[in-house]
C-alpha cells in the first residue's frame, strides 16, 4: 500500500484552509477595521490594498469545500449539515462583503455609505460565524451510523460564540498589520496604534481558548499534558509568547513588514495548536481521517491532478501579489 492517501489529503486540505485563513483573514480584517477609520479616502486606500487579490483568496475556500467533498465525503456530509446555520450565515456574510467590494466604487456618493455598511457587516458576520463553526468543530459532533445526530442549534454554545469573537480579533490583527505593511502616513500610524491593544486582546483570547479547551475535553487535556507529549508541545505556547513580544516591539519601533510577518507566525502557531488538539480526527471527537476517507480510487484520482495543478496555482498567486506589491497611497487612486 505504501502511500497513505488519507494522510496526504488531510495535509492538502489543512494547507488549503491555512491559505484561506491567512489570505482571506486580512481581507476580512480590513472590513472589521473599517469602523475605526472614518475618512472616505482612507477607507478607499484600505479597500484598494486588497482589491486585486481578495477574489483569488476566497477561491481557496471553494477548493477547501470541494476537496473535503471528494476526499472525505463523510466529513463533508456530517460537519456541513451539523453546522448548517452558521455556515449559511457565513456565506451570506461573504456575499455581502463580496458585492460591497465592487459596488462601493460604482455607487453614487449618496449610496456609498450603504455599501460601507454591507462591507463591515458582511466581514463581521463571515468572520464571526467562521469562528463559531471552528468552536463547534472543536467541541465535536454527535454521529450515529454515519449521520449527524445532534440538534440544529448544538453549535450554539458559550465556547463557540467565544471562538467567533476570538476569530474577529485574530482577523482584525491580521488586517491591521497588513495595512501597516501596505500603507503610510496617518492611516499607517493609526494602525500602529491599534496593533498593540489588538495583540494583547488576541493573547488573552488565545489564552482563554487554550485553557477552556482542555478543561472541557479531558482527552485533549491528556494529549497536551501527559508526558512526554508536554515536552514536544511546550514550544507552541512558548513560541506564541516570544512572537507576541517581537510583534509588540516591532510595532513600537514602527516597523513596516515585521508586524504582519509575526502575525502570520502567530496564526500559524494557533493553527498548529488546534491541529495538535484534534489530530487525527476529521469529525471530532472520534472519527479519524482514515474512517472518513473516500475510497483510494477517488483520492488517487484527485491526487494526480492536484499535485500537478497546485504549483501552477501557487505560481499565479505569488505573481499576482508581486505585481501589486508596495505601498498604496491616496494618490494611487485605485491601487
Amino acid at each position: 500500500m505504501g502511500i497513505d492517501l488519507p494522510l496526504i489529503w488531510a495535509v492538502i486540505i489543512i494547507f488549503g484552509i491555512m491559505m484561506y485563513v491567512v489570505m482571506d483573514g486580512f481581507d476580512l480584517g480590513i472590513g472589521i477595521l473599517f469602523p475605526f477609520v472614518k475618512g472616505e479616502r482612507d477607507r478607499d486606500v484600505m479597500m484598494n490594498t486588497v482589491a486585486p487579490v481578495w477574489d483569488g483568496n476566497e477561491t481557496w475556500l471553494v477548493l477547501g469545500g470541494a476537496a473535503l467533498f471528494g476526499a472525505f465525503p463523510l466529513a463533508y456530509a456530517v460537519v456541513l449539515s451539523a453546522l448548517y446555520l452558521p455556515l449559511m450565515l457565513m456565506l451570506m456574510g461573504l456575499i455581502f462583503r463580496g458585492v460591497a467590494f465592487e459596488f462601493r466604487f460604482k455607487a453614487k456618493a449618496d449610496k456609498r455609505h450603504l455599501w460601507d455598511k454591507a462591507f463591515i457587516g458582511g466581514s463581521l458576520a463571515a468572520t464571526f460565524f467562521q469562528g463559531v463553526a471552528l468552536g463547534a468543530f472543536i467541541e465535536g459532533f454527535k454521529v450515529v451510523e454515519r449521520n449527524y445526530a445532534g440538534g440544529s442549534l448544538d453549535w450554539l454554545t458559550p465556547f463557540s460564540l467565544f471562538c467567533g469573537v476570538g476569530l474577529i480579533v485574530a482577523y482584525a490583527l491580521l488586517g491591521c498589520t497588513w495595512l501597516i505593511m501596505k500603507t503610510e502616513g496617518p492611516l499607517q500610524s493609526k494602525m500602529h496604534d491599534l496593533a498593540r491593544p489588538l495583540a494583547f486582546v488576541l493573547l488573552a483570547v488565545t489564552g482563554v481558548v487554550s485553557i477552556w479547551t482542555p478543561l472541557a475535553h479531558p482527552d485533549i487535556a491528556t494529549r497536551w499534558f501527559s508526558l512526554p507529549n508536554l515536552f514536544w508541545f511546550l514550544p507552541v505556547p512558548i513560541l506564541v509568547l516570544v512572537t507576541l513580544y517581537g510583534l509588540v516591539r516591532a510595532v513600537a519601533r514602527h516597523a513596516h513588514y515585521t508586524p504582519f510577518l509575526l502575525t502570520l507566525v502567530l496564526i500559524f502557531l494557533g493553527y498548529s495548536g488546534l491541529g495538535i488538539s484534534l489530530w487525527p480526527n476529521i469529525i471530532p471527537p472520534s472519527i479519524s481521517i482514515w474512517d472518513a476517507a473516500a475510497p483510494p480510487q477517488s483520492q488517487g484520482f484527485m491526487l494526480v491532478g492536484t499535485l500537478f495543478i497546485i504549483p501552477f496555482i501557487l505560481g499565479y498567486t505569488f505573481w499576482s501579489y508581486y505585481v501589486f506589491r508596495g505601498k498604496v497611497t491616496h494618490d494611487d487612486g485605485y491601487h
Partner: protein
Amino acid sequence: MFGLEALDLARIQFAFTISFHILFPAITIGLASYLAVLEGLWLKTHNSVYRDLYHFWSKIFAVNFGMGVVSGLVMAYQFGTNWSRFSDFAGSITGPLLTYEVLTAFFLEAGFLGVMLFGWNKVGRGLHFFATIMVAVGTLISTFWILASNSWMQTPQGYEIVNGVVIPVDWFAVIFNPSFPYRLAHMATAAFVATAFFVGASAAWHLLRGKDNPAIRKMLSMAMWMALIVAPVQAVIGDFHGLNTLKHQPVKIAAIEGHWENVGDEPTPLILFGIPDMKNETTHFKLEIPALGSLILTHSLDKQVPAMKEFPPEDRPNSTVVFWSFRIMVGLGMLMIAVGLWSLWLRKRGTLYSSRPFLYLTLWMGPSGLIAILAGWFTTEVGRQPWVVYGLMRTADGVSNHSYAQLGITLVMFVVVYFALFGAGLGYMMRLVRKGPETGEGDEPTHGGPGQQRTPARPLSAADDDHADDHASLSKGN
C-alpha cells in the same frame, strides 16, 4: 407529513439558489467565447468596430462573472449542508469531479481574467488574445466537469456499491456516462444561444431608440447569424438528447409527454397541450396529434412510447410540471428559430436594422434563452425525480436532517438577499448595456491596472465607469 414538508423546503432552497446561479455562468460561457471571437476578428481585420465591441462587452462580462463567483460559492457548500446523505453516498464520485472543476477551471479563469480585463495595453496583442481564449476555455472546462457530475447522477455507471456507499471503479465510464455528451452539447449550445439573444436584444434596444452605428449593427448582425445557425442546431441536439433520455429514463419522457397508457398496438400520439393530473392518472383537456409522438421519439410510425402507467406510482416524476416546463423550452426554441429565419429574410430585403416589429420582437426575446435554460433544467431535474442518483438513491433519502424552521428561515434569507443584491448587480449590467459601445476605446491606455483609475484584476471593477465624478474625489492619480 412534516418530514415531507422539510424535504420540499430543502428542494425549493436548492432549486432557488442553483436557478439563480446558472443564469450567470450561462451568460459567462457565451460572452467569453463571443469576446474571443471579437478579439480574433479585430486582430485579423483591424476593423475597429470589433475592438469597440470587445471593450463594451468585456465590462458587462466582468459584472456578470463576479456575480457568478459569489453565487457559486454557495453551491460548493450546499451539497453538504442540505444533502448530507447524498454527499456521503456519492461524494466519492461527485466530489472529485467538483474538485477538478475548481482546479482546472476556476483557477484558470481567475488566472487569466486580470490580463483579459486590464491588460489591453500591458501585454502584447497576441498574449492578450491568448488570455481571452484561456478564460473562454476555462468556462467550457467548468461546463465539462459540472455536467459530467450532473449527468452521472442522471445515468450512473462505472461504479460499484460497497457497504452502502458508491465506489468509483472506472473513471472514464463515470465521466463519459451515457447522457453526458448530449447534456454537455445541449447546455453549452444553450449558453451560446442565450447569449446571442441577450446581445441581439441589446442592439435592438439601441436601434429602436435611433442610436444606429456600425458597432450596434455589427452586434445585431452577429447575434442574428448565431440565431439563424445555432438555434436549429440546438433543436437537433435536443432531439438526440430526448432519444437518449427515452433510452435511459423512459418514465421522464412519458411524464414530459403527459402520456399515461398505450392503447392496443396504436402508435403514440403527441399531446400538444393538456393538464396532466398525477392523482387521477390522466391528462385533461388533451389536444393531440395521432402517431406524432411515435414519429418524434422512435422515428417510426408503429413503435410505441413507454407510458406512465407502466411504472409504479412511487417512481413517477411530476408530469404536470415537466409537461409544461418542456413546452416552454421548446416553444421558446421554436420562436428563436423563427427570429433567425425572419432576420435572414429581412437581411435579404435590407431592412434588418430598421424593421420595428422585428426589433421589438428581438428586444422581447432578450431573456428568452435564459428562460429556456431554466425551463430545460426544470424538465430534466424534476423529470429525474424521485431519484437524486438515478435508480440508486431517492431524493428523500439524500437530504440532511434539518428542521422545517431552519430551512424556512434560510430560504427566506436567500430569497431576500439574492433578489436585493443580484437585482442591484443586474441593474448595473443594464446600465452598462444602455450606455452602448464607444468608439476608439482601445486607442488610449485603458483606465485600469496599477496607478490607474480602476481597481485592477477585479472582475466587477472592470466595469467602470460612468461615475467619473465619483473618482475625481477618490483619486487624483494617473
